[in-house]
């Protein structure tokens, strides 16, 4: 947990963020943004910066609040609940943590303040067409060219590249994986926007045909893995928060929807579905938070918990959003109802950074190695 934020400050920023989203990220806001090419709300982005959300992970030296995974997870629960569209995960989590881990203070000084203030948006290219988000899925090669590097290859499923000012690219250098900075990302050729199933998520495919880039010192495979871990925790928080909101909304509906002369939530078939979902939602919340706390504390079981959070939260959100449509009946099958927006997000979140079965296996492997000791 953060050395910089007190318990009260932490609660306060979460509450402020929740209020902000309740005001500027309603369902109709989300639907409005879906129809825009940008896909996110620049004003809201600015407000999030002012509130310290964008610089949450950034050290105070560079204008951030220097908070940790616990605070991040907590805010992501709110972001998930509101179905917030935009590059928070890309820029505020992956970008911030990668730049922060860079050992070149010049880079940090140049980039981090912009990320924290919202003036600069970062996008991170982590995987190729295989979409595995594993080191072996990286399909960009980096070749030295004087002091700089030349990138060749292809990255896909790049989140919010469309909105990015700078692009960070995981690429294979002669000495192993590294992270490379492409500035002025908006003028980069070879970026294709991909049509997505979840309209609140923007993805791009980027083809590099000899693109000049700067290698960020200090960012090896393990630094990348740390940044990914933060992103996994953030995503788990988003899923837990979104799942809870879906359940709340569904419970509200079944409490009031009358069929056969009484509210449908009084029928066991529906009531028991809700009870089972609550268990999933509470479990998702518990593990997302505990994974965050273990990460911040550097606990020995933090990898295990992050993997557990990754699949448990993904499954919980998919199950909750899927059941929600069923529990709403016909109205849940309409485009104008909110349920399918969450359902699409749930399906998308379940694929980002690798599927549930991958993390299930990774979780078991972590438990095995602890068991063997």
């Amino acid at each position, binding site marked *: 947990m953060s050395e910089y934020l007190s318990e009260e400050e932490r609660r306060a920023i979460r509450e402020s963020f929740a209020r902000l989203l309740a005001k500027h990220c309603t369902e109709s806001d989300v639907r409005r943004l879906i129809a825009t090419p940008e896909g996110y709300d620049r004003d809201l982005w600015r407000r999030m910066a002012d509130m310290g959300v964008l610089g949450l992970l950034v050290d105070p030296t560079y204008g951030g609040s220097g908070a940790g995974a616990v605070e991040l997870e907590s805010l992501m629960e709110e972001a998930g609940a509101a179905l917030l569209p935009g590059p928070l995960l890309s820029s505020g989590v992956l970008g911030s943590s990668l730049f922060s881990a860079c050992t070149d203070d010049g880079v940090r000084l140049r980039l981090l303040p912009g990320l924290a203030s919202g003036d600069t948006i970062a996008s991170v290219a982590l*995987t190729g067409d*295989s*979409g*595995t*988000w594993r080191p072996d899925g990286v399909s960009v090669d980096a070749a030295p060219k004087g002091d700089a590097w030349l990138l060749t290859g292809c990255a*896909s*499923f790049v989140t919010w590249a469309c909105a990015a000012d700078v692009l960070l690219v995981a690429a294979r250098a002669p000495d192993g994986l590294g992270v490379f900075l492409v500035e002025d990302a908006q003028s980069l050729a070879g970026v294709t926007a*991909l*049509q*997505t*199933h*979840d309209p609140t*998520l923007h*993805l791009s495919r980027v083809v590099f045909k000899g693109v000049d880039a700067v290698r960020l010192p200090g960012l090896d495979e393990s630094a990348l893995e740390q940044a990914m871990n933060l992103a996994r925790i953030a995503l788990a928080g988003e899923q837990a928060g979104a799942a809870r909101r879906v359940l709340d909304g569904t419970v509200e509906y079944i409490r009031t929807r*009358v*069929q*056969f*002369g*009484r509210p*449908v939530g009084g*029928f066991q*078939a*529906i009531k028991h579905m809700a009870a089972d979902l609550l268990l999933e939602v509470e479990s998702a919340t518990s593990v997302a938070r505990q994974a965050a706390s273990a990460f911040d504390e550097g606990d020995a079981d933090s990898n295990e918990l992050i993997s557990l959070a990754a699949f448990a939260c993904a499954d919980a959100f998919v199950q909750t959003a899927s059941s929600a*449509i*069923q529990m709403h*009946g*016909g*109205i*849940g*099958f*309409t*485009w*104008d*109802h909110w*349920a*399918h927006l969450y*359902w699409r997000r749930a*399906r*998308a979140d379940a*694929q*980002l950074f690798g*599927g549930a*079965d991958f993390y299930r296996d990774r979780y078991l492997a972590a438990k095995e190695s602890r068991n063997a000791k």
Partner: protein
Amino acid sequence: MQSNDSDDAIDPLRAEVRGWLDEHWDASARKPAHDFGIGWRRLVVDAGWAAPRWPEQWGGRGLSDDDALVVEEEFNRVGAPGCGQDRSHVSANTLLTFGTDTLKHEALFRLIAEEITTCLLYSEPGAGSDLAAVRTRADWNGEHWVIKGHKIWTSGARTAEYGLLLARTDWDRPKHKGLSFFFVPMKQPGIDIKPIHQITGDSHFNEVFLDDVVVPASNLLGELNEGWKVLLVGLAYERLIMGEGIGERKQGSSKDDHNRADLISMARDAGLLKDSVFRRDLAQVLAYRQLNELNVARAKMELGRDKSSPLMSMSKLAMSRILHEEARIMTKMLGAASLLDGEPHEAAADVNYRAANAYMTSIGGGTDQIQRNIIGEQVLGLPREQEADRHIPFRDSRSVTG
């Protein structure tokens, strides 16, 4: 059931159908042999082959089920359409059973010739699972019925000639006892049709607003206030059809009508047929589908082709699981690619469409939960769900009082 094709043993009916088809149908070109001046389906109707089980008065030949199947076999053998309407045309069968002669003369032949279509005006925003709670009203003004109300989940509303309407004709009786069933002429003022955008992206269904829509006395089906009985006949058909997997058609989409997923080929292409975890899931999903097919086949064998059976009532429930699970495993096969959608990403678009469209079977035509009630109560004989407003005047029900 015989399908003996040797000429020496051929029965006279089969010979007659075969002769008629030889004369009228070009099997190799799969089209009528000549231009007969009328549409092919009307030709079939006029010859009495469209609904051979029906009485001659209404265009049938009064054949037994076994004989009718002979006719269907011969039509199928040469790929000629138009036969079997007495088995599969829900509206026409409802009309035959419950309609007035006036209405039958007006609509029956055109229906089975598929010259006109119908739509279903059953569900309402406040009457989904609880269909008997409809609040659309039909009042007799001395001359005809006047309809006022708001219907939902109607497909084909714009093109339909008639709407099959469930409306309340007596508010002082209990909910099931004050409903009547009408064939509403759809081409008239007062009917406002608004498409519903579904989560699949399709707009297969509509909302239909009825404002002082008029219906002649002869368009009442069955007795006044006995509309619930008429409805049940139609519903049973709908569920049966969904159980056979017709619900998985991509109605309203640009895709083929029959696009059962070939999961094994997909898995092979995705290089997943050697992944033992995936194999187990795949085997289970294939099993669900095959078991349902075996159930349907057994039901047909045990009970004859057009009777309903306990197995049939389970089939829609089974199909719901099949479609959801198939979509799930297909999503797994695609992995990250399922994040995509739209024309440039055909496989993703297909999977995501299927995942959404599976709810059409698990919600439409009676939710899975309602299906389980039906199976529990009607097949297993378990006590009925308590229905707070079943026996009180409908105007006092919570559906009205809120």
